[in-house]
């Protein structure tokens, strides 16, 4: 198996694992019904290590999987995740990453953008857009920030080499 193929296999396993965590564990560890977005964190890792097109495509597929389990909202998560991960990949390509908090910071910004887009799409036309954004989107982004901090702190050195190399090589 080539290096690129094995990397994709690892990412696929990570996305599936994140998907399971999102639908199984997230509900249990939710605080006042606010849960972190495990899938987005893994997608941010892909955005930080892979090319923009690969990350965006992975985001679309993962979003579609989440959408398939959301009643009446097919395509919404795919849209939000695609856009957010594209921005994440662009940021990772432009900013030189040296420390964990820089990656975590970008993940937080992307989580806010993702939740903003998703909340807007789901609640468009409703008077509760702002309320839902304040009650759900912001706290959820903060929760994702905490989980991202833990996740990226324990990330193996192999991924860090790729994250640092992203700015130099961009499309690897």
């Amino acid at each position, binding site marked *: 198996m080539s290096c690129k193929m094995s990397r994709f296999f690892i990412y696929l396993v990570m996305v599936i694992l994140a998907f399971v965590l999102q639908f*199984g*564990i997230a509900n249990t560890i*939710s605080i006042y019904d606010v849960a972190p977005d495990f899938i987005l964190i893994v997608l941010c890792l892909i955005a930080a290590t892979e090319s923009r097109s690969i990350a965006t*495509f992975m985001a679309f597929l993962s979003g579609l999987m989440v959408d*398939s*389990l959301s*009643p009446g909202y097919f395509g919404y998560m795919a849209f939000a995740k695609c*856009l957010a991960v*594209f921005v994440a990949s662009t940021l990772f390509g432009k900013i030189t990453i040296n420390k964990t908090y820089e990656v975590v910071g970008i993940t937080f910004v992307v989580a806010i953008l993702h939740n903003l887009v998703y909340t807007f799409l789901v*609640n468009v036309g409703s008077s509760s857009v702002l309320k839902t954004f304040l009650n759900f989107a912001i706290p959820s982004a903060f929760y994702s920030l905490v989980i991202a901090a833990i996740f990226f702190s324990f990330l193996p050195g192999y991924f860090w080499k790729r994250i640092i190399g992203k700015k130099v090589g961009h499309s690897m």
Partner: protein
Amino acid sequence: MFEVTLSRFFKKYDTLRDYSLLSLLLLLSLILMFYGDKNENNAGIHLIAFVMLDKINTPILALQQVLNTENENSLLKKENAFLQMQLSRLKEMEQENGRLRELLGFKSMQMYPMIPAKVIGYNRQAGISAIQLEISREAKIKKNMPVLSARGLVGKVLQVSGRYATCQLVTDRNFSAAARVQRSRVEAIYQAKEEEVGQLIGVHHRSDVLQGDVVVTSGMNSLFPVGLVLGVVTRIEKDERELFQKVYVKSAVEFAKLEEVLIVNTEDVL
């Protein structure tokens, strides 16, 4: 010089390719938003997601259940004793009710078969509340069948894919049901408002509704049978200048702890 030009060209090509892909995927998402729910073509994706969830999530959920068993057991014992007392009282009342109905020539209330289902996943995001269920292959589950737990109405079936189904919870922002205040028989429409809190729409400001009143389905729409518990009135906002009062209802169901549910087969009458 040639190398620099070539490198610039590839960089521009990469950027163009990325933006084209993003535009294409966003366009595809938009198409899915408008047409995705109107046809059954996405059933394959549903099935893949369900199978994945079921295969990996079931052992995790089973472990959680084992950890909760002791606590749950003692609670269930207490609840069981209380329900036994109520059951004997209700049996007496049912017999009395039957005699009176016969006397008045009323039709007896319909009873529906219940189909058990296992909760294999949760999906709770901004305004969206749903659970994923695993059902028996033989069970004839259809869209819009009510889903119950021991504590009341959980939601309704929204989608069925083979052995799996998606249940829209009563807390989903698109959920509504014809409701009635059990004590005063005031009719209204229950609509999900926020997480685990719903609102009764159309309750006149002079209507008799009190905090603690139990709200049940009225059976006025054909989806839900009469008497399924929707929740308890937790807050009332009255303003004499407004025609309707705001009545907030909290569901008694602990959605985060749901493990098994019952689907009411409203197509077969026992």
